[in-house]
């Protein structure tokens, strides 16, 4: 990082926060602090929804994933437009007309207090776990890449987020998200243009795309079906639909974004914007990763992108042989790639077939050497299941991007972390206040008291996220488990909302029992099968609905009218 990079980074971050705070003036009532007085325009909500969903890991990890595995990750988002249409048609008008602050408040109107309470607790557990991870994951990567202590990167992001979220409430969060998405778009476009410009003069953009495809990096659609495979057309369409229904329909961190809309139409438009824009955006990010792969065809990449782990294995006896094998494979791949591009240009089919075979053989050899290096990290105590995917893009950025652009891309990572984290902290505070504190602890206090309590709850969850992030390294491989745990709760929440919207005869006790059964089914799938986590939402939702329907029709007394308790 040079002076110009620092100027770009600091200017970006300060302007984002200042603009968010400026737009949040007057957030002095609960309605304004938590829901922006229901005045937000669709485009602000749309960008806020996009920013909240896209954490820094999305950019760091997705580009790395494309470099290693190709673009098939984009299929994960194929269910999103379907989910958005369903949510726009059913959930948005229901939430708006009920004038609720949280999705779970709606469940008490529809079922009873215990169902609302269970859903709120499930949300707090699930989102609370990921709040720390949202800050921790990019903090550790930035720390390694920039050479700063982890505490510094954690504190910069944590303190900034907590400050504007506590002071400005959801208005500050939303308007900051708008700015953050602008910085993110700008940074991504700059990264793609730069990587293409940095390719050798003999390699055109068309050649680069051809070489990426020949190495299997442009596999955007794979039609094979496998229960254990996260990313194929079918898991994306079906599993993805259920996942995004859960995320955008039942997760307060997203629901709260579109509850701030000034009308049903504005809220719907914000979600439909995401339905249309999200897949191309992910495609674009993955394409950057594929182009970084092509860049490294002609520039020697390191054996491992995480320098600390590379240093760790360099003293091992096995290292020289692995490094030599990797270097030889890279040299062969470089020659084959240039020859393949030339043969493709000249329309030499026989030469193209020959060079393609050599190119793929060299790639397979390089992959093999890289896998050996990753195993050596494990053997050297570097952590089980080590992968350096998250370090690929930022290594490229810090080594090869021109001065100024490095600062911009680092600002993208900070911005993405802050937008995702502020949304999480804000929603955790809202559920804590509305569904726990105001419902069960202090039911009739002044508006001023609840605004103060909201700020305290925001501060609490912000401090929790930063502390959790600070302890992240000590959690070690549990971090991976925390990520999986997040996917264990959505299915039963979704099932409960499906019952609320789609089955009028089902009442509170049946829904409550269904949620418990749904959680049991998801945990059984997690513990005793190897089914991909993307299917947990389908399983959980299905079990919740079936059990609740069985109770409803086997025990008719469960169909008595619900109590109309409100917070």
């Amino acid at each position, binding site marked *: 990082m040079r002076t110009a990079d620092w100027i770009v980074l600091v200017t970006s971050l300060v302007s984002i926060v200042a603009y968010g705070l400026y737009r949040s003036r007057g957030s002095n009532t609960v309605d304004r602090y938590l829901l922006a007085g229901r005045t937000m325009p669709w485009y602000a909500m749309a960008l806020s929804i996009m920013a909240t969903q896209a954490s820094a890991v999305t950019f760091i990890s997705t580009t790395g994933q494309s470099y290693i595995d190709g673009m098939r990750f*984009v299929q994960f988002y*194929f269910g999103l*437009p*379907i989910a*958005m*249409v369903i949510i*726009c*048609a059913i959930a948005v*008008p229901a939430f*708006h*007309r*009920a*004038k609720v602050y949280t999705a779970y408040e709606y469940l008490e109107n529809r079922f009873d207090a215990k169902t609302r309470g269970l859903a709120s607790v499930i949300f707090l557990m699930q989102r609370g776990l990921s709040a720390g991870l949202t800050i921790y994951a990019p903090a550790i990567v930035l720390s390694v890449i920039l050479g700063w202590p982890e505490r510094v990167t954690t504190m910069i992001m944590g303190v900034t987020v907590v400050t504007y979220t506590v002071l400005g409430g959801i208005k500050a969060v939303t308007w900051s998200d708008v700015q953050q998405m602008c910085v993110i778009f700008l940074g991504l476009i700059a990264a793609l243009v730069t990587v293409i410009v940095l390719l050798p003069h003999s390699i055109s953009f068309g050649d680069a*795309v*051809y070489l*990426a*495809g*020949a190495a*299997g990096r*442009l*596999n*955007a*659609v*794979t*039609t094979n079906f496998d229960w254990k495979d996260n990313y194929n*057309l079918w898991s994306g369409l079906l599993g993805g639909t259920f996942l995004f229904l859960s995320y955008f329909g039942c997760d307060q961190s997203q629901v709260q974004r579109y509850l701030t809309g000034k*009308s*049903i*139409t504005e809220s*719907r*438009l914000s979600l*439909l914007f995401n*339905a*249309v824009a999200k*897949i*191309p955006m992910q*495609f674009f990010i993955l394409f950057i990763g594929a182009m970084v792969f092509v860049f490294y065809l002609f520039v020697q990449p390191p054996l491992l992108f995480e320098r600390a782990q590379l240093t760790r294995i360099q003293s091992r006896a096995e290292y020289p042989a692995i490094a030599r094998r990797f270097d030889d494979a890279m040299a062969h791949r470089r020659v084959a790639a240039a020859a393949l591009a030339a043969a493709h240009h000249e329309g030499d089919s026989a030469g193209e077939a020959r060079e393609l075979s050599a190119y793929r053989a060299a790639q397979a050899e390089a992959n093999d050497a890289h896998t050996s290096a990753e195993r050596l990290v494990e053997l050297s105590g570097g952590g089980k299941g080590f992968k350096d995917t998250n370090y690929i893009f930022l290594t490229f950025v810090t080594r090869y991007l021109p001065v100024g652009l490095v600062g911009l891309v680092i600002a993208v990572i900070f911005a993405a972390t802050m937008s995702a984290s502020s949304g999480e902290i804000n929603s955790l505070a809202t559920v804590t206040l509305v569904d726990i504190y105001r419902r069960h602890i202090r039911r009739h206090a002044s508006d001023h008291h609840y605004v103060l309590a909201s700020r305290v709850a925001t501060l609490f969850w912000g401090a929790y996220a930063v502390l959790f992030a600070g302890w992240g390294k000590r959690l070690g491989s549990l971090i991976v488990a925390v990520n999986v745990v997040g996917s264990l709760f959505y299915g039963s929440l979704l099932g409960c909302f499906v019952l609320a919207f789609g089955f009028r005869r089902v009442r509170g006790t049946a829904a409550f029992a269904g949620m418990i059964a749904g959680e049991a089914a998801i945990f059984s799938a997690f513990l005793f099968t190897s089914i991909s986590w993307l299917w947990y939402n389908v399983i959980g939702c299905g079990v919740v609905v079936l059990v609740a329907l069985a109770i409803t029709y086997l025990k008719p007394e469960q169909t008595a009218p619900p109590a109309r308790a409100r917070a």
Partner: protein
Amino acid sequence: MSAERDDAPPFLGEWRRVYLAVLVYLAVVISAFYLFTQAYR
């Protein structure tokens, strides 16, 4: 509880048509990606 008015969308006249347009768009995107994959495999 006052019911909020469900306005018409700013384009295509009815929400059902807007939803259908989004789903048609999804089908077009998947088809385009499939062709892209086949073209560069």
